[in-house]
């Protein structure tokens, strides 16, 4: 069983999205981008009449960095019902097209259409011919070769049409030619014949020129509109500044393919390279009808929504409660804040996939700290919390961070930690005489003698409101009479030290280090490595 009562791991395991993964779409920005694409298609659909013209062409660009969800969005759109009802899509990943010549790009465009579409177009064309035959069109009747025996066995055009579709009968192609060329252009007729023969993608090798490619795609778009009442969408992913790809795309844009949307998916870097390589194509891209922008696709808010959406999507039993969402969000926030490497949708889903597997193996009901810690240790063994001297494991870091939301508790924990650290320094001989105070009246938490015999008073001042901290620090100055030197440890981000008073700013990471050390110290879990680290930590905050 997977965490949150899920029956499967909701996160994608492959580095690039698959059609199944792309069923889930989270994130406000991604959803807005989807809405923009849908609106473009809806707009074009409302403009297109029965006969498409070259005014019915739209160019859409989708530009964002690698791993931010562009391909995911493209695949998600491809599987949407509202798209399937109104359009047919050819998805081409140019990174898989090699060598990038005209023929191969065209072949990729053809194989980008799915089988279901090709079958439905074939069916529509055969039924169109059948209807013609039934309306007593002499040439159309010849196509189905309905003979005397068929008449006796009560076979009609519908049965014959089905036999053609099932591949049990070869139609009269000469008659098909005769029928089609009266109503369609030569190219359209030849494409239709190939479709009937079940050889839709086979003619890619016969391409002679760019013009030829354009007429063929144009014919396909026309047929899609005529027979299926659908627009044609060409999605070209990983589009870059390669000369041949630029030429094909430029030609497609220039030719204004009828009832077609050309969607180019690329990175900002490729966009810039196109600007440098080919002004004409760049100018056309600049004038795209829709420029889909996934700005902020790697922000915490966006990543959180995407991560949670995966669980929500597969949570059929509705076991994923609000408190689980809050808990998982807090953990993701720590990963996001502490590791810049994971501030990216793809990296985060990868971590979550492995963490979910880890939690499932241990039958953990949620994705716990250990699952995340083990995952990061195994997948990114070199990764450490930034600035941590004690080498706090991520699991402890998450726990300490979450428990530090209560500022009073945090202050009390840091205070205890400082005392424990000084105890440890005393044990190690780095600090001489050591005494703890109650700190209530004086603001002093601990007094010790450093190796030189100087009496040092330490005050811990931690507040959410930094003004309060400044007041507290000013008050502790009055207590300087207790010692030769006053050391204030604070989160107030101030350097207002005076004669005899040293202010040390301790950031969140140092506090976590202190609390982690303190916990180990109290539980007698200090190992050999920790001894030196603890002294280093004490030195870093000028305790000794």
């Amino acid at each position: 069983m997977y965490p949150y009562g899920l029956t499967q791991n909701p996160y994608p395991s492959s580095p690039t999205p698959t059609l199944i993964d792309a069923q889930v779409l989270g994130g406000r920005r991604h959803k807005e981008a989807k809405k923009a694409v849908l609106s473009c298609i809806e707009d074009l659909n409302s403009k297109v009449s029965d006969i498409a013209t070259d005014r019915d062409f739209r160019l859409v660009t989708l530009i964002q960095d690698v791993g931010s969800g562009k391909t995911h969005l493209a695949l998600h759109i491809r599987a949407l019902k509202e798209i399937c009802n109104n359009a047919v899509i050819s998805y081409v990943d140019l990174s898989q097209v090699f060598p990038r010549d005209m023929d191969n790009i065209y072949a990729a465009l053809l194989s980008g259409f799915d089988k279901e579409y090709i079958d439905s177009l074939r069916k529509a064309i055969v039924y169109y011919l059948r209807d013609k035959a039934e309306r007593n069109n002499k040439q159309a009747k010849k196509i189905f070769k309905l003979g005397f025996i068929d008449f006796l066995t009560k076979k009609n055009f519908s049965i014959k049409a089905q036999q053609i579709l099932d591949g049990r009968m070869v139609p009269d192609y000469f008659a098909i030619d005769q029928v089609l060329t009266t109503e369609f252009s030569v190219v359209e007729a030849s494409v239709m014949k190939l479709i009937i023969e079940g050889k839709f993608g086979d003619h890619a090798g016969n391409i002679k020129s760019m013009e030829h490619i354009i007429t063929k795609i144009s014919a396909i778009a026309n047929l899609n509109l005529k027979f299926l009442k659908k627009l044609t969408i060409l999605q070209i992913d990983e589009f870059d500044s390669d000369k041949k790809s630029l030429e094909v795309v430029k030609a497609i844009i220039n030719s204004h393919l009828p009832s077609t949307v050309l969607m180019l998916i690329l990175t900002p870097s490729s966009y810039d390279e196109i600007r440098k390589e080919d002004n004409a194509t760049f100018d056309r891209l600049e004038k795209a009808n829709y420029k889909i922008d996934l700005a902020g696709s790697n922000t915490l808010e966006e990543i959180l929504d995407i991560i949670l959406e995966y669980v929500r999507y597969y949570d059929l039993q509705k076991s994923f409660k609000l408190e689980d969402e809050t808990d998982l969000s807090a953990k993701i926030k720590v990963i996001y804040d502490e590791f810049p490497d994971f501030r990216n949708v793809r990296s985060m889903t990868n971590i979550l996939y492995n963490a979910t597997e880890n939690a499932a193996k241990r039958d953990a009901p949620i994705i716990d700290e250990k699952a995340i810690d083990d995952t990061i240790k195994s997948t990114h063994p070199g990764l450490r919390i930034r600035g941590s001297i004690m080498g706090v494991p991520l699991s402890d870091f998450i726990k300490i961070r979450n428990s530090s939301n209560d500022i009073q508790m945090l202050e009390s924990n840091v205070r205890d930690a400082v005392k424990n650290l000084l105890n440890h320094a005393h044990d190690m001989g780095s600090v001489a005489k050591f005494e703890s105070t109650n700190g209530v009246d004086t603001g002093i938490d601990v007094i010790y003698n450093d190796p030189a015999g100087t009496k040092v008073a330490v005050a811990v001042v931690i507040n959410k409101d930094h003004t309060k901290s400044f007041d507290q620090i000013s008050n502790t100055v009055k207590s300087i009479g207790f010692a030769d030197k006053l050391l204030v440890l604070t989160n107030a981000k101030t350097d207002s030290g005076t004669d005899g008073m040293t202010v040390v700013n301790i950031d969140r990471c140092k506090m976590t280090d202190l609390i982690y050390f303190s916990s180990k110290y109290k539980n007698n879990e200090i190992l050999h490595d920790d001894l030196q680290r603890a002294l280093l930590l004490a030195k870093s905050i000028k305790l000794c």
Partner: protein
Amino acid sequence: MSAEQQIVERITSAGTAGIKKIDLRKEFQDMEIDVVIEGLVTSGDILVDKKGTAYYCWHKDHYLQNLLNTDPKFRLIYESIMHLEMSVNKTSDGLAKTLETLYNNVKNSQKSPATKNLDGISHININDEPTMKLDRFRNEFDLAIGNNSSSIGWVELSKVRNELCKKYNISNEDFYSFVEQLTNLYHDKYELSTGGYEGLTVRGLLHGFVRCI
């Protein structure tokens, strides 16, 4: 519409195939075709060339394409020149970058006073604190992004670096240290993207583009 405009329009509509001069003469019988064409040829708007036995007219925008389509020798020379131009551009870009790096290195070494240690060996202090504060840098950085950004908002970090380092006399190292701090502190305000020739390395990838969200 003037006679010249009419003829230019007609020639333009013929595209890369061009139009026979004789056909123009037939079409515009009431005009002094030769005079008009001569004027247009002088102004460079149209070009006249012999194709077979007839003279053809092309609009200047289509003539080059016509030559590329019909004359393989011309096409080969044209492609060679384009290739040469591209490689010259790339080389000069590379040269400019090297010169800039050298210039910055020299500037940095001049800025950092050489000190002598106890053994009398000279060494350069590389830990100089940047002279600019992060807040001020942020303002200037935002401004530079705004000034240099493309229609989609992205800017090459090298462009911004060029501008700010020159303007405020800061080193490349300081610039990228500031950018790293900014993008870490305000990760909901800035976005980095992979690519480019220089920038910050995140997830082992060079991120050479930036934009404000």
